[in-house]
């Protein structure tokens, strides 16, 4: 074989460098498509929906007339469903994470639980809706209520909270546990006074990311049969005639933001597109600000904790 001349070697190197540059351009191009989609999405909703960003839009119920329709029942519904979801998912998720990290022995039961959690994360969300329709709505008789919806979304985000809790606990060095046990604390006292407080920022991040996911979920809530036209609010505790009890609101019919958007998007009348755009922007704002808080928390956490 003839040895390559200097010119040929330079040509080979130049070709290689050219390919590198082309690929770099391709990578940046793909990233900019992602960015473009986000920008186009937000810009479209802001421009189309801008005429609805009034106080009335937040304080009016759904209506047949697009210009008078608002999102009052939707944002109140979303908030109440999130409250139920958080109350159910946070204690369950943290307890499960704590058990798996601090208590569980390496046996078949632990293995089953772990495999199961990772598999549940891959189940399509609409399947949770079918589970809830069969179990919560009909077997338990909760009906198409805020309680059913909140519990459904709680099951959906449970894997997210469990995984976040476990990661936060795993980052705590063993010396903390040993120190606590050395002065005579029991396992639970160690968890209660040391593990949980130190893991708190990580857990909180997971909870917020889970709730941000839940607030945007539509499919499982439609499946349990949430209504799309609600022109009243759930009963406020101890008011009305006859007076409502403390928890009457959990059994109330409801609608949530994503369902309201779905309803407006699927109407043929283009006047409702404006409402869908405005409501979509409000929902995006909720989700993105929750994610921003989570990212900020993660950042703070990385800076502050030094073992």
């Amino acid at each position: 074989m003839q040895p390559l001349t200097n010119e040929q070697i330079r040509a080979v190197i130049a070709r290689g460098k050219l390919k590198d540059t082309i690929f770099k351009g391709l990578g940046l191009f793909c990233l900019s498509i992602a960015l473009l989609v986000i920008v186009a999405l937000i810009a479209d909703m802001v421009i189309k929906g801008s005429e609805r960003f009034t106080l009335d839009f937040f304080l009016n119920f759904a209506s047949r007339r697009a210009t008078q329709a608002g999102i009052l029942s939707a944002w109140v519904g979303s908030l109440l469903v999130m409250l139920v979801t958080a109350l159910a998912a946070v204690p369950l998720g943290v307890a499960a994470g704590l058990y798996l990290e601090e208590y569980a022995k390496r046996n078949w039961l632990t293995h089953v639980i772990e495999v199961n959690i990772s598999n549940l994360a891959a189940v399509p969300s609409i399947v949770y809706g079918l589970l809830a329709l069969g179990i919560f709505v009909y077997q338990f008789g909760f009906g198409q209520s805020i309680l059913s919806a909140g519990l459904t979304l709680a099951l959906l985000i449970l894997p997210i909270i469990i995984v976040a809790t476990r990661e936060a606990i795993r980052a705590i060095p063993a010396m903390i546990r040993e120190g606590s046990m050395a002065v005579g604390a029991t396992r639970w006292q160690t968890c209660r006074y040391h593990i949980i407080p130190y893991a708190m920022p990580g857990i909180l991040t997971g909870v917020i990311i889970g709730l941000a996911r839940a607030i945007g979920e539509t499919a499982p809530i439609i499946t349990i049969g949430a209504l799309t036209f609600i022109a009243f609010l759930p009963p406020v505790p101890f008011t009305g005639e006859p007076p409502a009890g403390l928890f009457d609101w959990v059994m109330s019919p409801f609608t949530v933001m994503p369902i309201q958007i779905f309803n407006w998007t699927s109407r043929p009348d283009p006047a409702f597109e404006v409402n869908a755009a405005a409501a979509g922007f409000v929902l995006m704002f909720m989700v993105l600000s929750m994610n921003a808080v989570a990212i900020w928390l993660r950042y703070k956490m990385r800076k502050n904790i030094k073992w």
Partner: protein
Amino acid sequence: MRNVSERLIEALLLGAAAVSVLTTVGIVYVLVSESIHFFQQVSIVDFLTDTQWTPLFDDAHFGIMVLVSGTVVSSVVALAVAVPMGTIIAIYLSEFANSKVREIAKPILELLGGIPTIVFGYFALLVVTPILQVIFPELPGFSLLSAGLVMGIMIVPYIASLSEDAMRAVPMSLREGAYAMGSTRLYTALHVVVPAAFSGLAASYILAISRAVGETMILAVAAGMQPNLTWNPMEPAATITSYIVQVALGDLPHGSIGYLTIFAAGLTLLLITLVFNILGQWLRAKFRENY
């Protein structure tokens, strides 16, 4: 006393961990038991071979292939977008980008992954479809193409972040070896890093398929909900998931055949995603490289 309360707490925590197992049991129980009622009225052969899906008509047909075709076509369109884009972004971020670019790109991808799917549905129907109609004037108002494209964009962050993790886990010494022999960055990425991270890449693609098959709202909004046995992405069609939404929006009596169909459809969906999950775990175990 102390021991008793410790034991009690441990039992309570175990109970919380068991909720996830109960969820799985509940899902399988609900889907299987309702599907058994369904298959008492419809033969499983008809379910798998009939070419019509008209469960709510007088002349009822229950051919699940009609819905499966919509799911397959929209998923193929989505993957045709998401796999190349996600892989290129992952290679770029792991092998080419400096830390500054990465610090900007990561939150952008996280943001994209966090957008609610109903908002993507709105985007597909009211922004992407009109743009596509300029290019393809014969495209109808609802189409699998437009829903699939947006679904692909939605899935890009999942593939990008999982694949990037897999590639960054490849030890530096492998790359250094390649560079020492005169490889360019791109050659090293494609011929050393990608093969070494293959199991992780494959797992991310499988997860993407599961996502695409289970995605609901984009299709319910932008692909129309008429059952349509087609392999053409330019047509509107119902998928397994959007059919469930359509039925749930109506007011079907509990226990009727129409009510039972959504559980049979749900069981089909769960089985499809289960197959891909098992395939993904098998691939990961088989092609895992240890360093």
